[in-house]
């Protein structure tokens, strides 16, 4: 899976491209946890190019978020496509993680 990484001050913006499923979750997990292990406390997960997320994908997002919480950091999700939005609504992910409309809105969360 291709993951675009950008920095905005001390915030890391990760944009996974394609599907986060059984085949791609592990590579995304490694990338995400490496970013956290490198000391990044603030992460925006920009989902504008994410077409699908499986429950394994959700677990990876949760795992990243929990690591960040341990460091008293924050993870914000943004730019969800309709299907992804539906998955996050059904699972009420916003009770665990803030969800913003755009990257600009997400940046305001920090």
């Amino acid at each position, binding site marked *: 899976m291709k993951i675009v990484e950008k920095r905005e001050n001390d915030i890391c913006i990760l944009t996974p491209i394609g599907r986060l499923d*059984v085949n791609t979750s592990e590579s995304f997990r490694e990338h995400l946890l490496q970013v956290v292990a490198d000391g990044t406390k603030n992460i925006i997960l920009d989902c504008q190019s994410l077409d699908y997320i499986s*429950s394994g994908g959700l*677990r990876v997002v949760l795992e990243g978020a929990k690591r960040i919480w341990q460091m008293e950091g924050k993870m914000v999700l943004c730019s969800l496509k309709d*299907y992804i939005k539906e998955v996050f609504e059904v699972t009420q992910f916003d*009770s*665990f993680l803030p969800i913003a409309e755009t990257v600009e809105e997400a940046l305001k969360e920090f």
Partner: protein
Amino acid sequence: MENLLTSAEVILDCLSDGVYVCDRERRIVYWSTSAQRITGWEPGDVVGRLCLEDVLCHEDKDGHRLCGEEHCPLHRSMVTGVTTTVPVIVFARGKDGRKIPMQVTAAPIRNESGDVVGGVETFRDVEPMLKDLERAKMIQAQTLEQDLPSDPRLRFSTFYLPHDIVGGDYYAVKQLDEDRYGFLLADMEGHGLAAALYAMQLGSVWNQHSQLLTHPPSFAAGVNKELVRIFGRVVTFATAICGVIDARSGKVSLTGAGGPSPLLIQANQAYEKIECPGPLFGVMEDIPYKEQMVELEPGDSLLLFSDGAFEIHNARDELLGVDGLAKILTNLDYPQKQLNMDELQEELLKFSNEIRLQDDITIMEVRFWCE
């Protein structure tokens, strides 16, 4: 002596795992001594032949042939250039015709320019482990096997199709009093053994809390609290839908914990999704759950299912989705005709263009007749 100890072929032949190498056309060019020991096939029987010929005949647990283009682990590894990260269990045919369960890993072999020129597959005889898994499957089946309520006013039916030998879905139904029945369909994240072990724990959590189902949000809160404790520092979760139906009125109270929206299908095949969002089980303590009311008319059917039943992509990468599942069900003349899991699986496979489905599938049907 030194040459002997560093000779790759000597090392490969001493391994307990079988090893063989194919060129890009999948012609077998190397077959290790251990491969011979496990399968009975000698190098002379197989070297020079295509691995997709009738030699190894890899099959999955359900007997589907894997030696095609996209399902062969070795071929897939050569096409994608990726080493398998999770070993897959396949059944191969030994020289004596015996089916041998094997754990298989595959990796591409590249030339100096980085082009894939072949692939290597290693395999391990897992017969002893498989016997254990078969016992685990039996134990899991006993946990899920329960007498469904017998009541002329309604009918519960359950259908379960694990992806691996054991699965991570759990379901249960319980009569709460003269007229009310509580039910739960839960899906542990992931599949395989770890998910199956957690699914067993869901069974004991159900037993502890099922009386709370007279008010599903209280039941959900109790289960969530218990699962947060059980999962501890392991990051995982379960999705679920639970509820209670009153057999006098057809009134149903549902609570969602990230489970897929159930389908209400009327006798005339009109259907609607019953949205009941709610936080995943086992992630965070002290989260409130909500209640969603729905009223069944006589002849209506309420279907709960795990995401394996609709999170299926076709060859064009389109997702089946809940609406797609509903269309397949109505094409199968449901609910006039009783749900047939074999027919449904066939239709899902047709859509998916795969030889096997990628997740556990569980469906629970609540059919209301009235008095």
